[in-house]
């Protein structure tokens, strides 16, 4: 369309066309205060009118870990070497939980916030971002509990030794956050059109956990399962991230063959994978936010 007076001073335009790779980072930065306020809101209101309050942060991973220890190590007899089985499971669950919580909470972003999204504009991605950030607090509390148990078990020599690679922990958390956010954004975009996905998410996450090496070392899978099944674990990025974390804290003391060294390249590769999934999720999310209010 030709304009009689092509005026370059317009601040912005609203039209149906947009750049696929326009991530609007500048705009997100402008709304950073909102991000922090959402985080604050989530934290403050989560346990209002509950009896145990933030204790729920602790009860859930501890109980899960106890059950896993009974089932997988007690009944199924999975070996965790010189590392206490409970501690071994707690390590996996703590890291896994961060991913699962981020994914679960972000996957219904559009549906849950339909009301507010239908009234006011702000970069929608602020919502899932704030969830990922506020879950960090939960992760921090759970990590503290893990450290407490770690210290306790290391007194009796059941915890292996901490390796220098522990410094990679922030990267591990970043990878888990990006994966949870990326998958969450993809699913939340699809849920606006196909509601069935909500049901899939619930038990999908559960199934996914079993192939993510949360309660067993990856090496065991290779030993015990035929290759047409074990690839599910071997090529699962989450399994590798969790395995790496465990290697970092236990120095591989749970393995039969601890020389199987920690691989920085492996982690960097996971980081790239996570980043790609995150970007992909962001693109889909940005496409959806433009018109979702018409379909939701």
């Amino acid at each position, binding site marked *: 369309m030709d304009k009689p007076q092509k005026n370059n001073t317009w601040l912005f335009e609203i039209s*149906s066309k947009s750049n696929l790779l326009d991530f609007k980072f500048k705009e997100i930065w402008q709304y950073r205060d909102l991000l922090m306020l959402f985080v604050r809101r989530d934290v403050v209101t989560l346990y209002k009118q509950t009896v145990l309050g933030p204790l729920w942060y602790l009860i859930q991973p501890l109980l899960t870990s106890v059950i896993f220890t009974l089932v997988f190590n007690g009944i199924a007899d999975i070996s965790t070497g010189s590392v206490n089985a409970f501690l071994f499971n707690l390590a996996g669950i703590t890291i896994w939980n961060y991913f699962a919580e981020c994914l679960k909470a972000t996957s219904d972003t559009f549906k849950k916030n339909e009301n507010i999204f239908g009234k006011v504009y702000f970069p929608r991605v602020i919502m899932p971002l704030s969830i990922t950030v506020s879950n960090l607090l939960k992760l921090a509390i759970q990590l503290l509990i893990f450290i407490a148990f770690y210290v306790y078990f290391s007194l009796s020599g059941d915890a292996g030794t901490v390796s220098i690679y522990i410094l990679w922990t922030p990267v591990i958390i970043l990878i888990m956050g990006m994966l949870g956010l990326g998958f969450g954004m993809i699913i939340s975009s699809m849920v606006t059109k196909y509601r069935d996905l909500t049901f899939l998410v619930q038990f999908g996450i559960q199934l996914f956990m079993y192939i993510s090496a949360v309660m067993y070392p990856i090496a065991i899978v290779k030993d015990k399962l035929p290759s047409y099944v074990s690839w599910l674990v071997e090529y699962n990025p989450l399994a590798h991230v969790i395995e790496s974390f465990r290697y970092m804290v236990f120095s591989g003391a749970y393995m039969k063959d601890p020389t199987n060294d920690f691989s920085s390249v492996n982690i960097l590769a996971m980081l790239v994978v996570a980043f790609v999934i995150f970007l992909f999720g962001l693109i889909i999310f940005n496409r959806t936010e433009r018109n979702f209010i*018409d379909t939701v």
Partner: protein
Amino acid sequence: MEEKEVILRVENLSKQYRLGVIGTGTISHDLNRWWHKIRGKEDPYLRIGERNKRASLGKTDYVWAIKDVNFEVRSGEVLGIIGKNGAGKSTLLKILSKVTMPTTGIIRSKGRIASLLEVGTGFHPELTGKENIFLNGAILGMTKAEIKTKFDEIVEFAGVQRYVNTPVKRYSSGMKVRLAFAVAAHLEPEILVVDEVLAVGDAEFQKKAIGKMQDIAKGEGRTVLFVSHDMDAIQKLTQRTVVLSDGEVLFDGDTEKAIQAYLNQGLDTKPYCEWEDMDTAPGNDFGRLKSAAVRNEKGDLCNRFSVRDDIYVEVSYWDLNTEYNNTAIIHVVNERGQRLFASNEFNAPDWLDFHNKEKGIVTATCKIPRHLLAEGQFNLLIAVGNYNPEIIHAIEDNLLSFEVFDDTTGDGVRGPYAGKWPGIMRPMLAWNIKKEPLDSK
């Protein structure tokens, strides 16, 4: 007033919706769309679609909620947007506030747009008033620092000083609305979009809100788009108004005229109406309407009068009443639906001469004198009935309509004054004048 620069321009804006359920068929349409797109062809579903008429059944599932809407807003202007339900107001606002995207067309803006579509958006019931002010302000696009500097002002404007540290779930609904409006009114966007907020809150707060909106527009030079069904609020706040009808711009201009255009929608302006068949004409066995007409002095049908013209309303009916004396009744209603006055045939001194309990066709003419009605459009209710006992035999609302204009030639009520003249009536009244010399003491 000097011409300010255009701050917002809406060009050929259209939005298409698909009616019915999203489910089967969605994917096939999506695929078809995608297939056309990769071959570089136009979206096949954009060619179809109809104007958005709610009441009539359409042929396709696709409708244009708004279609080719164009208008401009200048900096500091308060623009009203009115239209019937389903005219496309909400869709337009949603696009303006970036909640949803247009199908085609473009909006260009030189300022930030903040919307106040429905108050209390994003209030969290568990959080206190203070926390919600910050949260809501941030949702609307303010930074924390901005809110901090305005915080006291907001609390004072909302009048909730005592409740600042109480969770919002304990607020009355009125308090919530006031708090929400206060936050939004203290926003600093260049363009503020307001939808129907004034419908809530008590009279005092409404007054405050309207005052604040005027301040925003006049004092602070910000631009306001104001959407409402409340004609009084529209008139108080805006000089210019856009009327939407079935997704298209029906009128864009002076608010006074826009309100007329809005109110006249769907009304036929016709000075004449007749029923040929007595058996099917409106009425009953005691009286049926035959015809009604608006005529000028010469007796010609007319639907446009000067304020200086006498207006003749002629009602003709089959008088079948052999028990009581029938009378023709007219009501004059202005374009805002205000009933100005009613008049009855029985005011004629010779009325009883024609109502001697014999059947016949009565034609009664009422003269509405010059210098009585104001400018505008008027609708007539025509009825036939009898009093004592009170029975209406035939009644037709909005049957006829006519227009009155004032061409300010100097001999009317307003004299040579060409500006707006207040009042819903414009009677020429008698004045009595006295004057005494100054030094009479």
